[in-house]
């Protein structure tokens, strides 16, 4: 019991520290929409690096990455591959998004789509899909925080209280400080995660095997199949490769990532962030060590849930002091909270700006829009918390489905950025066919060749866009460019 008290004490201290930083980050421009949403469009390299890093490193990465290494072995390198490839999209697309946003005042994906294609309903649709994907995603972070608290304190802090504690802190600083609060807390939480991940990864392999190299030699002796593809579970190259591509290049369509491009102080800043971004992926390397370490430890009694491997290793196997367990809990909570803050912030903005402003809040003043956004942060966090308590099984399905739809916005967004000749009808037809194909492959049929369904859906999407463009050109004879309004 005293051990659990130490764990709780360390973690509460950490939460209070984050809350203090988040509240103090409140800038002077927070009352303006641009200030609250995009940090006044002058966020610099360091903060932006940590924001974009934190968004990808969710509770899922912190617990799921070691889980993959433990369960599948080498296929876990999928996570390293896709994370280090994400910056290619930031490099190519970010500066253009930032400059368009500055010129035309865009703050969301929906803004850009609605304006470029001259269709308000398209913007609303993008907004609705965005909220539908973001809220389940937020729920998963909140549930992750609750589970972590409960496990690491031996039930002293139950699920409902742990989830509540972590997300009251998040909602408070996002409500008060907007993007500035997210930026500064993500910096602290990012450093926390990196330090703890490396400490745990190295000390666990040291304690159990006498070092990383020694650990891998022992795995090579008993379970060599874990160390190369297709891994212990036989994942084929086709799925591995296409999953990397969808996650790496489709990921930038997530509203919480995409909208951060608007907040950069320049295109140069975004490029600099993308240069350093692959280094953030090194955070995962020690987490993978922990998963690999679990392969031999749990060889006789496999874990029921592979994503508990980090918790089990730290708490039961490596025999750490409660101080270390408290730090581990803080680091894992950092992963859940730093992602959750971005999700709550983005979901509220998308809801108010893309869905409510063109409908129920027509002509509202900037001040009331900011106010509505702030209260939506609290409202949506509460909804996500209630979802986490109810734990409906359909949540993951909703997340998967909505994410599949978001990725299908890719050609539409590319059109708005680089390809003015693409017409509204073509990109809409493409997105529709692509989304439908994705949903069918994910939930009804299986995907051909065992590839990730997102790749097939995207190929169909692009094919339909191309065909529609050609058809439109022949029928309208040269009016193809008319769809672009300057």
């Amino acid at each position, binding site marked *: 019991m005293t051990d659990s008290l130490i764990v709780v004490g360390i973690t509460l201290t950490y939460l209070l520290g984050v809350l203090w930083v988040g509240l103090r980050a409140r800038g002077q421009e927070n009352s303006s929409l641009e200030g609250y949403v995009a940090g006044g469009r002058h966020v610099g390299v360091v903060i932006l690096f940590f924001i974009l890093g934190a968004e990808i490193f969710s509770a899922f990465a912190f617990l799921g990455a070691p889980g993959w290494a433990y369960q599948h072995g080498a296929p876990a390198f999928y996570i390293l591959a896709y994370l280090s490839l994400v910056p290619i999209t930031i490099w190519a697309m970010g500066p253009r998004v930032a400059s368009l946003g500055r010129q035309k005042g865009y703050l969301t994906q929906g803004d850009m789509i609605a304006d470029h294609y001259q269709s308000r309903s398209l913007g609303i649709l993008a907004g609705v899909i965005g909220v539908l994907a973001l809220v389940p995603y937020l729920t998963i972070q909140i549930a992750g925080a609750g589970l972590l608290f409960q496990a690491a304190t031996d039930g002293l802090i139950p699920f409902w209280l742990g989830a509540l504690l972590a997300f009251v802190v998040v909602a408070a600083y996002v409500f008060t400080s907007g993007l500035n609060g997210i930026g500064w807390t993500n910096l602290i939480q990012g450093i926390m995660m990196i330090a703890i991940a490396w400490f745990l990864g190295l000390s666990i392999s040291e304690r159990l095997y006498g070092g990383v190299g020694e650990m891998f030699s022992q795995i090579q002796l008993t379970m060599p199949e874990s160390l190369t593809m297709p891994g212990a579970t036989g994942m084929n190259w086709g799925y591995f490769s296409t999953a990397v*591509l969808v996650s790496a290049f489709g990921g930038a369509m997530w509203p919480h990532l995409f909208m951060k491009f608007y907040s950069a102080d320049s295109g140069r800043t975004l490029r*600099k962030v993308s*240069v350093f971004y692959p280094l953030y992926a090194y955070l995962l390397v020690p987490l993978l060590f922990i998963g690999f370490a679990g392969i031999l430890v749990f060889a006789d009694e496999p874990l029921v849930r592979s994503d508990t491997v980090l918790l089990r290793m730290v708490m039961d196997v490596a025999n750490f002091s409660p101080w270390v367990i408290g730090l581990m809990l803080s680091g894992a909570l950092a992963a859940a909270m730093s992602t959750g803050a971005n999700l709550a912030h983005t979901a509220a903005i998308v809801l108010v700006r893309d869905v409510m402003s063109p409908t129920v809040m027509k002509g509202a003043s900037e001040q009331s829009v900011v106010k509505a956004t702030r209260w939506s942060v609290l409202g949506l966090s509460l909804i996500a918390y209630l979802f986490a308590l109810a734990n409906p099984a359909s949540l993951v399905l909703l997340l998967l489905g909505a994410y599949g739809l978001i990725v299908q916005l890719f050609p539409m967004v590319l059109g708005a950025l680089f390809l003015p000749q693409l017409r509204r009808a073509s990109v809409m037809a493409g997105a529709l066919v692509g989304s439908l194909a994705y949903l069918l492959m994910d939930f009804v049929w299986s995907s051909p060749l065992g590839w990730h369904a997102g790749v097939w859906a995207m190929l169909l999407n692009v094919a339909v866009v191309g065909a529609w463009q050609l058809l439109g050109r022949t029928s309208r004879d040269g009016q193809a460019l008319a769809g672009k309004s300057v």
Partner: protein
Amino acid sequence: MTKTYHLLTGLHFALCTLAMIWPGALIANRIEPTVLGLPFLFFWYILWMLVLFAGMWVAFVVRHGGGRHD
């Protein structure tokens, strides 16, 4: 920026992507030789993360070195 610049950055991105998926990663799909204590395939990913970083760094300096904002 020149056509050559865009071509080279594009090639760098394509090369790094292909190295991490099929077919590029096939050539590294083995345990020996271990490097820094890591199985070769694990090291391969660590290596390409570094290559991607280094190439982007060069591309950045060429394009934006000296504070240029184009």
